[in-house]
């Protein structure tokens, strides 16, 4: 109680115009920014993996398993920021046990469980089954048992069985694509369906979320692939890199167009809220929206990759550098996209007469420290997954 009051009192002097008295406390903070960021990465990484299985894009094969494991690592962490932000984390299970069918948020449990159980784990299992069996035969002691358990004690490596594995993982990917769309489109719907909030309330929201998810997921896998391959002392597959960067580029163009459409539509319709939103965008949200999200996270990488596409003779070193830097910028940009949606939607008053402020805390469950922890955790999980289930494709071929 005392803590909240001490946090809120200094904010009173930073309000401009008039806000409803209950609006001084900004309810969805940094943790709720991280949640859509993480699920976006999951959905995007999975879409990249599906390119190999469903659309037969052979070039990106080296990143297939990396994408799947990345999706899994981030999916495991995705619900944690939500849990930490609840007033009563101890009652969170009620969402699963007594869901209110009219609530978009209540569907979280179903969407999440479906995606984890029916899509990601199954696909990984089928893809790794043969290797799990091989490893369980090769290794000794604890590892032998770990792989036996992970393979669910299957031992059949006949040609028939392998054909079935391939077929199953293809079918699961086909189901997985709409599921990945559902996973992240649904997060967009949570915001897009709030009619009280003109910054959120947009039918485009789920689609914008989806394409920004694809952009962020692809760029993350690109980064992981570019960092981990030299660390393993292997050569980067330039064909693969070019292809992934291309897909990132195309997804960015769609994402950019959608966001531009949303922007133009708002200005053209010029509804009641346009004044206060304009004030917000040109003021408190200028740096994170115009500078970081639009310029650094979108326009600069787009120009850089266009440059590579125009001058095909660019030396590989330069291409790699541009891809790497662009992917980092894209990550920063997408994080700031999430920030601008979540925080931006709460900076203006629903009375449309004033703006409030968001002050992050450092300690505490909703503070910066926990958030950084939640952003690092998926990489730790991914590291363990890489150790347990090496995704390196060179070995498999030989």
């Amino acid at each position: 109680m005392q803590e909240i009051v001490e946090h809120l009192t200094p904010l009173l002097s930073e309000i401009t115009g008039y806000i409803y008295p209950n609006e001084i406390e900004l309810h969805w903070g940094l943790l709720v920014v991280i949640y859509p960021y993480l699920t976006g990465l999951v959905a995007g990484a999975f879409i990249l993996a599906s390119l190999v299985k469903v659309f037969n894009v052979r070039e990106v094969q080296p990143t297939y398993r990396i994408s799947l494991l990345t999706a899994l690592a981030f999916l495991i962490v995705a619900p944690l920021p939500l849990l930490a932000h609840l007033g009563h984390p101890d009652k969170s299970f009620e969402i699963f046990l007594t869901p209110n069918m009219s609530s978009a948020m209540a569907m979280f449990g179903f969407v999440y469980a479906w995606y984890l159980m029916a899509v990601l784990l199954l696909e990984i299992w089928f893809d790794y089954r043969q290797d799990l069996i091989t490893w369980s035969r090769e290794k000794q002691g604890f590892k032998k048992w770990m792989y036996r358990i992970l393979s669910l004690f299957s031992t059949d490596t006949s040609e028939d069985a392998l054909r079935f594995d391939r077929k199953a993982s293809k079918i699961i990917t086909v189901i997985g694509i709409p599921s990945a769309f559902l996973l992240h489109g649904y997060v967009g719907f949570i915001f897009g369906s709030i009619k009280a909030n003109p910054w959120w309330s947009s039918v485009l929201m789920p689609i914008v979320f989806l394409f920004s998810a694809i952009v962020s997921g692809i760029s993350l896998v690109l980064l992981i692939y570019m960092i981990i391959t030299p660390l393993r002392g292997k050569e980067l597959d330039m064909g693969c890199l070019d292809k992934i960067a291309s897909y990132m580029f195309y997804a960015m163009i769609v994402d950019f167009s959608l966001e531009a459409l949303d922007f133009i539509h708002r200005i053209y319709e010029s509804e009641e809220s346009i004044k206060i939103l304009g004030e917000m965008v040109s003021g408190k949200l200028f740096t994170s929206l115009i500078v970081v999200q639009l310029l650094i996270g979108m326009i600069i990488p787009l120009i850089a990759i266009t440059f590579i596409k125009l001058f095909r003779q660019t030396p590989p070193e330069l291409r790699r550098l541009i891809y790497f830097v662009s992917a980092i910028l894209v990550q920063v940009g997408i994080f700031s996209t999430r920030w601008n949606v979540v925080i931006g939607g709460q900076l203006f008053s629903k009375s449309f007469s004033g703006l409030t402020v968001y002050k992050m805390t450092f300690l505490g469950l909703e503070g910066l420290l926990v958030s950084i922890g939640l952003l690092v955790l998926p990489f730790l999980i991914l590291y363990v997954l890489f150790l347990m289930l090496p995704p390196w494709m060179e070995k498999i071929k030989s």
Partner: protein
Amino acid sequence: MKNEKIQKIKDKRKKEKVTRRNFVRTFLFTFASLLTPPIVLAEEKIKKTRAWILGENYNPYEHHWGMGIDINKCIGCGRCADACKKENVVPDEPFFFRTWVERYRIYDGNQTVIDSPNGAINGFKDQDQENRNLTRSFFVPKICNQCENPPCVQVCPVGATFITPDGVVLVDDEYCIGCRYCIQACPYGARYLHPETKAADKCTFCYHRISQDLLPACVEVCPTQARIFGEVKKKASPLVRFLRMNKVRVLKPDLNTEPKVFYANLDMEVK
């Protein structure tokens, strides 16, 4: 003949063998059962809460509550906001309100200044010191609109907030998980997260009072009877008289929330 029999038995055995297909099918079905936890619909939970809140003498199905607010009568004394905090043990700090009063000052050139210092609990003390011509000025009490079509109830993931048969939107604070989706969904800023219970909180029309045949605290203390409480539909109700005698408006009608708080003499600047 014998060979044929043996072949048949072999075929049969082949069929009974645990094939991959069978294994995977059973496996998938086993997983499917994991995905169906015992579901209790929110509706069921709400029924229990209803029974717990209401006494024996009050039948919520016989009532339908609403409120009328006459802007012309409000003097901005803030007694209502103060009484509400005392009656409902709302934290004293100026960030948590079930009801508050806004002051509107509209100057030449349609410049609007709105304020509500501490929800108007201490009244409005600062006088106009600006050298501008005041076109019009008035006070607007705000409260949960007890919508017929409440977005907060729609979005609550667990059904902790619900609409009673008598039309009041309530929160079960022991059931609320504190996700704050309802606070985001309310267009009127009528909800806050209670800093102690960590549950969403809002105006209940003083449900503990109205179910005992008493008026809500804010209505009871209003010195000018700017707030009128009563039945929306019954003819003998003071609210129905209010609705007959005044031209009324609701807040943000375009959002189709169908509020049951009706304002008489509401200005276009009020949002």
